[in-house]
């Protein structure tokens, strides 16, 4: 289990939930955005072009109406040039003119010129008639124009600075029919112009080539003259339109509103008809479409956010549970169950985690049990006991065991004299050396006290030829410890090592209480082995008769006769195992210490 500090360090910087949320959100919103933006752009372009087309159509229609108005007047004027100027035709011509005035309210005055260009009749609504004035009008631009192009349109002039007049001249089919020059009051065009409506608030107006306002729904603009700022704005608009070619123009109209305008020519008098629509109105469909797209985008984004939120939750929820579960299990809470029921791999994973936790729990329990056993059993035996689930092996029963005792000679005095660190250090080396051997021979260590150990063979797990094994082990122990003793002697620590073995029936089993129990053997053989060990001098391995029977062939034995041992009424035959040990120094040690080896 890693410490909390390390755990915190490996915690992800950005939560998985955030990443999923952003990814899902982007996955929905980005296509939406792209789609919306491209739709808006293309929609705008389409709308603009359709608006342009519509305005142009309206402009052409307005131009046609104006042209129609002028054509009507010209047609009516034609009536007056159908008769030739001959003798006696004056009255007839006069009649024609009077009826013309009656018929066409737009005509203010008419001048009839004969085939030679001489003025023959002048009739006006506000002046007295002039008959046969004799004025030569052949150089009048009106007359010249009419002669060349049948219908001549003069420039728009402002009578008295405010009334728009235009001269129209019409020539007859034959030169002798003469020419009619009429002055038209263009205010009547106003009726035509003001009837033209485009959309909600669009209208039409007419400018001549030079930019002067000829007709406008607000007639007062026309009458105001050239230096009016409104008229100047319209002139500006016209210039923009001309510069733009066939495109619609944008600019300020007479009322200073921003408009989109289209232009169509009126060929006869060389005027231009304009149709304007306030930009706000014209672009309304575009604006609305944009708003719609924007709203849709917003709704889509909201939806995407919600979707992303829920999906991310669903994804990361189980993962968070797994993470927590792993944490709990890692902390040792093996009974923590991860509950995931999404029906997918995550649920499977959770199940695996739970199984793992159960197994970890079992394994941990087992490890603890083994650890407990290993305190006295050799690792192999502990595993065996634990693995085969043979706890029953540890139960009390009688068995033929080999008991081995060993301890250090002269340790008591040494430990009294030496510093505590030296004592512990020496013991450490001693146990390390012995421990390795014990483990290898799979002997059961039942207890150790200070410098002495008690070992069992053939319990709790039976082993083949326990006595032989025991003696072999003892021999190895002696060899190992003796080399240690040599080293210690160099440091000035004088100790010896003796081993005693005995074999016999004993009761083996666990004794103790809950939480602290030890495995041990109870019986005569235990005491025997202990006394035999006590009798062993430094470097000796003493064995009893029973052991001797078993190992007689394998090892060279030296019978030491019967020894009186405390606790035994009769003497016990003891044998010594011959070993190849450097025996040098034993006598010295014995002499130096001057001690009884028998402790």
């Amino acid at each position, binding site marked *: 289990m890693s410490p909390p500090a390390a755990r915190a360090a490996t915690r992800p910087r950005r939560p998985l939930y955030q990443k999923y949320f952003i990814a899902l959100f982007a996955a929905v919103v980005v296509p939406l955005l792209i789609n919306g933006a491209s739709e808006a752009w293309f929609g705008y372009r389409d709308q603009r072009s359709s608006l342009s087309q519509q305005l142009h159509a309206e402009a052409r229609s307005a131009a046609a109406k104006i042209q129609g108005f002028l054509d009507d007047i010209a047609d009516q004027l034609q009536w007056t040039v159908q008769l030739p100027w001959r003798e006696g035709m004056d009255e007839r011509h006069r009649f024609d003119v009077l009826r013309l005035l*009656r018929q066409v309210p737009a005509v203010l005055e008419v001048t009839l010129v004969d085939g030679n260009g001489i003025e023959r009749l002048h009739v006006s609504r506000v002046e*007295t008639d002039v008959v046969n004035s004799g004025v030569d009008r052949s150089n009048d631009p009106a007359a010249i124009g009419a002669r060349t192009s049948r219908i001549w349109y003069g420039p728009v002039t402002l009578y*008295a600075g405010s*009334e728009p007049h235009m001269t129209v001249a019409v020539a007859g089919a034959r030169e002798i029919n003469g020419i009619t020059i009429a002055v038209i009051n263009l205010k009547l065009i106003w009726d035509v112009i003001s009837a033209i409506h485009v959309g909600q608030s669009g209208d039409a107006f007419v400018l001549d080539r030079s930019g002067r306002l000829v007709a406008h729904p607000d007639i*007062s603009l026309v*009458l105001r003259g050239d230096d009016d700022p409104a008229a100047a704005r319209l002139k500006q608009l016209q210039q923009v339109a001309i510069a733009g070619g066939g495109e619609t123009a944008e600019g300020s109209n007479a009322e200073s509103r921003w408009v989109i305008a289209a232009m169509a020519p009126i060929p006869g008098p060389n005027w231009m008809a304009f149709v304007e629509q306030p930009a706000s109105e014209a672009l309304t469909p575009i604006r609305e479409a944009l708003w719609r797209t924007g709203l849709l985008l917003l709704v889509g984004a909201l939806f995407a956010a919600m979707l992303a939120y829920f999906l991310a939750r669903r994804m990361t929820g189980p993962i968070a549970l797994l993470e927590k579960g792993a944490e709990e299990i890692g902390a040792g809470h093996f009974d923590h169950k991860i509950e995931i029921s999404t029906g997918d791999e995550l649920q499977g994973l959770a199940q695996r985690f739970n199984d793992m936790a159960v197994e970890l729990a079992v394994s941990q329990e087992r490890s603890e049990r083994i650890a407990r056993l290993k305190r006295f059993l050799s690792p192999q035996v502990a595993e065996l006991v634990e693995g085969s689930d043979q706890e029953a092996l540890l139960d009390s029963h009688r068995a033929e065991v080999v008991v081995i005792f060993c301890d250090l000679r002269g340790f008591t005095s040494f430990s009294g004299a030496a510093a505590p660190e030296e004592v512990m250090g020496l013991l450490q080396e001693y146990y390390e050396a012995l421990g390795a051997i014990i483990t290898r021979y799979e002997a059961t260590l039942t207890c150790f006290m200070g410098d002495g150990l008690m070992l069992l063979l053939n319990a709790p797990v039976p082993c083949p030829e326990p006595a032989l094994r025991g003696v072999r082990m003892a021999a190895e122990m002696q060899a190992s410890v003796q080399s240690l003793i040599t080293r210690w002697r160099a440091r000035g620590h004088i100790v010896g090592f003796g081993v005693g073995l005995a074999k016999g029936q004993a009761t083996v089993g666990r004794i103790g209480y809950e939480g602290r129990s030890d495995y041990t053997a109870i019986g005569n053989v235990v005491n025997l082995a202990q006394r035999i060990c006590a009798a062993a001098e430094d470097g000796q391995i003493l064995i009893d008769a029973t052991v001797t029977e078993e190992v007689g062939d394998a090892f060279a034995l030296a019978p030491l006769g019967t020894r009186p041992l405390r606790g035994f009424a009769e003497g016990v035959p003891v044998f010594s195992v011959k070993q190849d040990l450097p025996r040098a120094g034993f006598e010295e040690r014995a002499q130096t210490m001057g001690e009884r080896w028998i402790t």
Partner: protein
Amino acid sequence: MVARPEHPGQHLERAYSEATAQRLGITTEYFPTRNRDELTAALAAIAENPPQAISVFADVFTMQNREEIIDFATSRHIPVISGWPEFAQSGALCTYGPSLDASYRRLAYYVDRILTGAKPADLPIERPTKFELVLNLKAAKALGITIPQSVETRADRVIE
């Protein structure tokens, strides 16, 4: 010429009439009538020296008293001409002047512009576009005058 001098533009009408009359070789006499007393005096003066025709300048005062003037003239076989059709309806021989209906419509336009905030000084002055010629053939018959075809042709309205 019978006219009320205070009528706006009256002096123009008078000057124009006198100039045209001079061109046509007609002598004119001018009788200003501000009120009924002056009118009575003018009519009395006219009675002493009957003209060939009377031109009544159209204005509110003369409108109100047109019956009197026209009856006075008709009883003396003097044709009356004026500017507004109402005079023809009351017995004047013929009237020629701007169409009041059209003028009133334009008047409404000006009122609208001023009410929406335009300054009167900014609004242009408009001349009349439509003119009306009204003939009273009944009066002509009574006066024993034959109206020439050309004039009849030009008439916008004829009162039989």
